[in-house]
Every structure is written in C-alpha cells, then in structure tokens.
C-alpha cells in the first residue's frame, strides 16, 4: 500500500501484477479488496471477471466482465482500506483518523503506541504517517483480533511498519521497554483512565496522548486523571457533513416581475387562471447541493493532552 523506499516510489502508473492487492470499485458504497491471482475470477452482479484480464492494466482502469459489466481497479490507500476492511470492532472513520494524525503531530520517523488495535483502521493511517523510518506498536487484548490484524497488515504490506501485540493495556500498561520512547500514544479503551499512568511513562517530553471515547463519562474520568501529569488537555468532536449534488429543476410561478408591471392587473389575473396552477414554468435545471439527510451523528470524543514538561 505504501512506498517504503525511494526505489518503490509510489507510481500508480504501475500496472496490476500477480499477487497485487487491488480495490475493486463498483460504486462509492460498494468496494472490495482482492489479491490478484492469475487463475482466479471475481463474480458479482455485473458478471464474471477474470483476474488474468486485469494483469498488465494500469491501476485506475475500467475492466469488463464476460457479460459486459464493469468495475474499476484501484490501488489501495488507507482511506480505501477503511471502506473495505472487515469490521471486527467499531472502527474509526476518516474524519476522526485525519484529525488524530494531525493533532498527534505524527511525521515520518515517529514511534507511536496504540491500544486497542480493533480492526486496524487507524493503525493503517498511523503507519502511513510514520513511514518509512518510524514504527507503530499496536496492542489488543483479544488474541484472535490481534491475529486478524496481523494478517491484514501482511496483506496490505505494512508489516514492516506495524507490530501487533496481545496485551491488556488497561490492566498491565504498555511494555516497559517503550518507556520514554513514544512520540504519541492513541487509546481506544473502555476505561482509558486506567492506562493513562502508563502512557505518562511511555511518552517523550512534550509527547501527546489521544484518547477516543464514545461516552462523556469516560471523557470526564480521563480528564480528571490527566490533570495530574498532562497539560493542554483538550476535548473535541469531529464529524463530516456530506453533500448530495444533483441537477434540480426549480419551478417558478408564472407571474414574473416584468409581466406584473407590463399588464394591467385585470388581464394578468385572467392569464394566471387560464394557465392552471401557475407552476408549469420549469426553469432550466441547475446543479445544486444539499446536505445528505442522514449522517453519522457521533463517533466519539477525542481528548488530547501533552505530557507536562519537566522544565
């Protein structure tokens, strides 16, 4: 997914080859990640697609099925991955992920600790931000979940950037060997306050913590714990409002300004009545946007805090 050295520079012009992970795009809300295998086929409502037809085509190409249906083959990115990964837990979405990376001030070379790993949605974006020289250490107490995440990072080619550990961070804290080594720490735990003392030990001077919690009570308790050792404690909520774009025909009343002054009132009125409801005057369509009706109303609160400087 990521270019890990200057030789393998990101170059989407690169063509699809055997063993590549591709995102098969049907619609904006229907995508799938697939490993290309010369002998395999993809079957969906648009027909049967032979992988062998894909090999050699540039990423971004439209490919056709036996019966003429088509899909696009896209190169994976963390954003596309977030849309196709299997939800083993509630995942973080793009608005939160983007904001977390920015607010944790993660740049290439950083060491980042994360718990829990969950579905690995955030880890993938963390890996992109620390690449090529940094590292993400992510922990989950659920053995099966950690194993699945590890498999996913293999699949997406991020294993050299992300290490998954099985550990109950709330109960045991982060491993001692990371003491004073972390640039940033991210927590997505039911009782984050239990892990905060350990986070204080792990962070470098001026390092930053982010804790994600759906409920305000978790935030209240975390902030209380944070106040002893952290500064710059700030809590945010980030959401995305999306817009629907469409061509709209706006009807207008028959009576328009010019006419109402041109014609004597009597004539004008008759005309209106003759012409029925007065709504049959469709203007040319205009392209307008309207916010989508339903949206994610809440994901969680993001609490950031900076380790107090020992001056």
């Amino acid at each position: 997914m990521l270019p890990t050295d200057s030789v393998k520079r990101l170059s989407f012009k690169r063509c699809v080859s055997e063993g590549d992970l591709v995102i098969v795009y049907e619609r904006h809300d229907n995508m799938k990640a697939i490993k290309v295998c010369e002998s395999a086929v993809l079957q969906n409502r648009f027909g049967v697609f032979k992988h062998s037809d894909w090999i050699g085509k540039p990423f971004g190409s439209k490919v056709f099925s036996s019966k003429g249906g088509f899909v696009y083959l896209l190169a994976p990115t963390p954003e596309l991955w977030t849309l196709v990964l299997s939800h083993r837990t509630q995942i973080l979405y793009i608005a939160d992920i983007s904001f977390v990376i920015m607010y944790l001030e993660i740049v290439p070379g950083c060491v980042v600790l994360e718990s829990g790993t969950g579905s690995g949605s955030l880890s993938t974006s963390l890996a992109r931000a620390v690449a090529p020289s940094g590292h993400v250490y992510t922990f989950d107490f659920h053995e099966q979940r950690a194993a699945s995440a590890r498999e996913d990072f293999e699949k997406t080619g991020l294993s050299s950037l992300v290490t998954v550990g099985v550990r109950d961070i709330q109960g045991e804290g982060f491993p001692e060997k990371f003491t004073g080594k972390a640039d940033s720490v991210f927590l997505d735990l039911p009782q984050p306050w239990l892990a905060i003392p350990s986070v204080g030990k792990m962070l470098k001077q001026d390092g930053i913590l982010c804790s994600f919690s759906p409920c305000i009570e978790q935030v209240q308790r975390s902030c209380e714990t944070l106040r002893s050792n952290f500064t710059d404690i700030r809590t945010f909520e980030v959401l995305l409002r999306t817009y629907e774009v469409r061509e709209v025909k706006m009807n207008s009343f028959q009576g328009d300004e010019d006419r109402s002054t041109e014609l004597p009132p009597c004539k004008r009125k008759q005309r209106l009545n003759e012409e029925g409801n007065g709504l049959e005057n469709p203007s040319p369509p205009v392209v307008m946007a309207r916010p989508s009706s339903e949206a994610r109303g809440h994901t969680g609160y993001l609490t950031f805090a900076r380790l107090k400087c020992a001056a």
Partner: protein
Amino acid sequence: MSIELNSNQNPKITWEGCNVLLDINDGDRLLFARLTPGSTLKIGNKSCSLQPLIGCHFGSLFQLETGDKGPFLSPVVEVSNQEEKGCKIDEPKDNRALVDNNTAQSLTGDEIEAMRREGVTGDEIVEALIANSATFDKKTSFSQEKYRLKKQKKYAPRVLLRRPFARSICETYFKKYPTRIGYLRVDSLSLLLSMANITAHSDVLVVDMIGGLLTGAVAERMGGMGYVCNTYLGVNPYPIDIVRMFNFSDEICKRIVQSPLAELSARENEISLQPGQPEDSCNTEKLTSPPPNSVNMDELMVTPENNNSEILTTAASPVSKACKAAKAGGKAPEVAIKSWRETGFSSLIMAVPDMDAWTIVKEVLPLLSFSAPFAIYHQYLQPLVTCMHNLQLGKMAIGLQIAEPWLREYQVLPSRTHPHMQMSAFGGYVLTGTRICST
C-alpha cells in the same frame, strides 16, 4: 527491531534561530517568533528578552517576572492545578445576595506597582489581591477561580513555548488571519492530507493559493522523501512564505519545488490529449532555458519580514540572515519533471479558496497517474459542486464526495462539562475523489 528511531526530524528542544510559536495566557494571544539572543517580546507595557527560551523543551511554560534588570521570562516549575478545584454542583452559595461594585478591592494600583518594584512575584501579587478582596469569600468557587485567573493573566502572564507544526500554524492563522488561508480550518487541512494520501516517497502535485500553509503541511508529512511540487499558471509562483514557519531542515526544503503548469502539462498535451504526437520543440526549449520563475522566487524570499510582519513578533529584533532556513520552493529538477511526465503525480492537493476551481482542476487533473487520489479545498460550496458535476459528466474521476468537516471543542471540568459556548461554525468544503483511466 530497535525502538530507537531517528527522530531528528522532530526535535524536542529549541535552538538559536528556530521559529517558535508563543502562546500567551492560554491562547489569549498567539504569535510566531524567531529565537535569537537579541529578540524580545512585549507583553502589556513590558518588554522582555526571548533568550531564556533558547535550548528549552518545546512545551515549556514561562512566566513574566520583574527583576533588578527589568522584566524577564522565568520558567514555571510546577503548574498549579487551578482547574482541579472545580465547583460542586450542590454548592449552597449562589449569587442571590452578591452586589458587585468597585469598592471590593482595597489594594490600589499604586500599591501593586510598589510591590512589583520591590520584586514581589506575580503569584504573590495575585494572592495579595485575593486577600484584600472583600467579596472573594462570598463568591462561588467557580467565580473565585475566574477571579484568580483574571488576576494571574494580568499580573503574572504566562508564555507557552510551542513547536510550530502544521497543526499549530494552521490554528494560529485561522484564529488571527483566516482570510490569508481562505478559512482553511485544521480539521479540513487534516482531511485534505489524508484524502490525498500524503506520505513519504510520493510525488504530490500542489496548488497552494493560501500562502504556503498547504505546501508546508504536505512537506511535513513527507519528511524530505519524494517531492512536493507546487504548480501555478503564468510566470509568478504563488507566495509560500508560511513554509518558513515550519523550521524545515535543508533536506526537506530541497524537496519543496515549483514548476509552472505549462511545463508540467507538456506531457499531458502530448500523451493524453494528442496521444502519439512527438514532443514538440517549444517544450524542450522551455526546459533548457532558465526557469521563468527563479527571479521572482528570490524576490519573494529576500523580503519575507515585510510581507509577513504581522505574524512575526514585531519585537523580535533584526533576524540574522546567517541562521536562516534553506530556501524552499526552488525550481523542480528536470529529472523529476521527466519522471512526472512519464508516470504522473501520485496525488493532487489543492487549496484555491478564491478561484473558480473547475478551470484549474481540468488543467491539473490530467497530470495525475490513474488511480491517484485528489483533495480540493474551497471556501464556497458552489465551485466544488460545479467541479464534481463536470468530473462526473467527463468520467474523469470516481468516488467523488463533497464533505464539510464539523469541529466542536468541549470544556470538560467537574460538574461543568459542555461544548464551548462560541465555536468556529465554518472550516470550508473539501472535494475528494480518485482519478480514473477514462479510455
């Protein structure tokens, strides 16, 4: 694998000549400053040297004190936890009987000045003010805290030393000069960076008409690996002065380059619009002649203090040219341009808050590789709507979405938790999508 990674790009300690962000009294005032032995900061009517800030950890807190030789910045050793005092929801006190007038404080201004001259610390003056307030004890603990904070800000102002990062630079401009960055809020910026898949070793095409904030933010994410290529129409690149605030190493600065659209487009005209047509002579000519923008770039970089004086602390004394950061925004190397012509850019990121976005997008989108993601910022919705509609009609991109980030900050304090009473209600619109091969 060793945990000890190279964090050179992320220094934790200030050095002489570095740019810093000073946060005075918990966000009341924000300013950028360059730390030199001679630079000074004015708070109220007092001026103090920034020298004590050199060699300190970012994140250090200072307090203005008055000594024998005048005001100076002194490190704050322990932050008193004012917030922890909180107020109980059941507190019996209320403001039923409280009549506020100006006779409550018995300490006069002259007396306070006298204390200061005698070297009494700011904290001690605050305590004296509280002790001499007739109404302090009658206040709710919430009001008491407000009173204390107000006095502390006045008599013992604090300066927090922050590292300029895309985050803090964007927040500062958004707060102080939102029009200069086209109202691009930090959450919108973060969305742009994610959606455009910015990472090391990529080749990012940038159209930055917001003073260099976007360019700097992209470069920060790439850590000096790959290229940030700013493009522009005409002969003058768009100013990117804000890039200087990032304290970039020479290595990173070298990877921030500029190239006129006409030059980058040569391949486009040749391959996409007229496939198979041989490279025409005027493109080659352009490439070998001196780049038309080099002179202008120099002009831009030589006079940054004038252009940008409202952002640099006015008291920061003459900047020594010697320790100035390497120039960002040089001409893109030919070999890079050649490679972009062959493989296309790996992503596109744009912030053109005052422009008809479509007239730009239709020119620059063809410079991307197929499957490359793009993210476009605008301060108005309609130009992005037009863009999206045209991209759909032209089958140039898929996965198109217009989003508007929404950000809300909370006050989390015992018994007093609520969203902030004032909020930034607008941080701009972002159009994202993926370029496709339309053939």
